[in-house]
């Protein structure tokens, strides 16, 4: 257990994001989220659906809300608004990225989490340039009815785990990964994170989980 890598800690945190979801489609994007969802399905979340679904069926599932997506983000702000579209003026951006992709439809319809491989001030910004994934402030503006399916479960970065379980739904630090100082998280976040006096450490993989991870990893 003590020889788990930093990546493996993140994979387990990603797996934990899906705990309790029951029989829904898991849509992990990227290596750590994919390995996390697979680990969850192989252990404590056997009803999770992790197989490929054709695009013609995907939005039926998205709009029915039977899904939990774990997306990346070029920018993520204090209330969980996510940007993957562009930086700067939308008409002629300073940096063109991907486009809004499925983030608007995902976030208004079902549970969303985020995986940020490198936690920096460039990613964790006070306000994103373009709101692709809807955050809690934007959801509140829509009103309870329109926002009733909105939930950002957690944010996982290479420094720690975060969520929005605060009175005003601002991002808070849930745990720091082993070997990471709380100050490091503060220094690399471009807004005031809600931080408790005592921050727990993100849990390590169990022996069984480590064995499974090593089986599936080259």
């Amino acid at each position: 257990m003590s020889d788990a890598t930093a990546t493996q800690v993140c994979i387990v945190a990603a797996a934990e994001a899906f705990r309790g979801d029951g029989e829904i489609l898991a849509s992990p994007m990227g290596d750590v989220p994919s390995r996390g969802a697979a680990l969850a399905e192989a252990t404590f979340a056997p009803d999770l659906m992790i197989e490929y679904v054709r695009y013609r069926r995907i939005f039926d599932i998205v709009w029915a809300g039977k899904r939990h997506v774990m997306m990346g983000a070029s920018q993520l702000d204090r209330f969980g608004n996510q940007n993957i579209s562009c930086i700067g003026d939308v008409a002629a951006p300073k940096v063109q990225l991907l486009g809004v992709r499925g983030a608007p439809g995902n976030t208004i319809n079902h549970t969303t989490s985020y995986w940020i491989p490198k936690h920096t001030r460039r990613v964790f910004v006070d306000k994103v340039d373009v709101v692709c994934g809807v955050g809690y402030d934007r959801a509140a503006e829509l009103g309870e009815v329109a926002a009733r399916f909105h939930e950002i479960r957690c944010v996982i970065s290479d420094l720690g785990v975060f969520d929005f379980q605060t009175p005003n739904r601002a991002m808070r630090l849930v745990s720091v990964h082993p070997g990471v100082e709380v100050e490091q998280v503060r220094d690399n976040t471009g807004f005031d994170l809600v931080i408790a006096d005592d921050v727990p450490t993100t849990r390590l993989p169990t022996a069984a989980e480590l064995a499974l991870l090593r089986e599936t990893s080259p």
Partner: protein
Amino acid sequence: MDKRTTHHEVLAELRSGMTIGIGGWGSRRKPMSLVRAIASSDLQDLTVVSFGGPDVGILCATNKIKKLVYGFVSLDSIPLEPHFRAARQAGAIDIMELDEGMMQWGLYAASIRLPFLPTRAGLGSDVMRMNPQLETVQSPYDDGETLVAMPALNLDVALVHVNRADERGNGKVLGPDVYFDDLFCGAAKLAFMSCEGLVDNGKILEPDISRLSTHGVVVAPHGAHFTECPPDYGLDEAFQKRYAASAKNPELWQAFRAR
């Protein structure tokens, strides 16, 4: 009915200013031989609707696009399409950037002759700010819920590439995903389908694209290259890398085009 036609004849149906939908997704099963025909033509000021990949990149690089309707443009294994990036950062194209599901809904609305379809997708996001022409609609029933009225994405022409087709215009995708190619064809006045190979009439039992939606079939082996067309062939990663590198400067791009 024999719908067999050629790249040349397809091009003859196209006009500057048309709205052209392109099937596939990212670097997957894109009708590249048809796209290259457009890139080499005199056509201008096109509105292109696409789940974009190098089709959009090539048409940006050859200045064919006046307006792009998209949810993303990506080469998958190379996340950011460089020619599209350059066009956007230069402010060279008008855009309608939409959630992917909104795009599906717009194509579906067009294919069933509706002016719009309601959806939650888009609410609360900057899709509404980036597209001020988008309207919301209130449910006329007791719920009174406010939803986005996703307008129909009517196309003059759709271009798709499939693994197999027959002369009557049925199309079969043998790979893992049809994406939205059937909706592109349904949303268009004229739909042209290129294919790796033709099969006899009656052999395609459950077409992924119905002959009711297609007007022309072009036999184009490797017609999706360099994008993938499984199981016939995968993505030509080496070629895609060279293509992406060609965006660095005009000389490189001209050299790439000349090959």
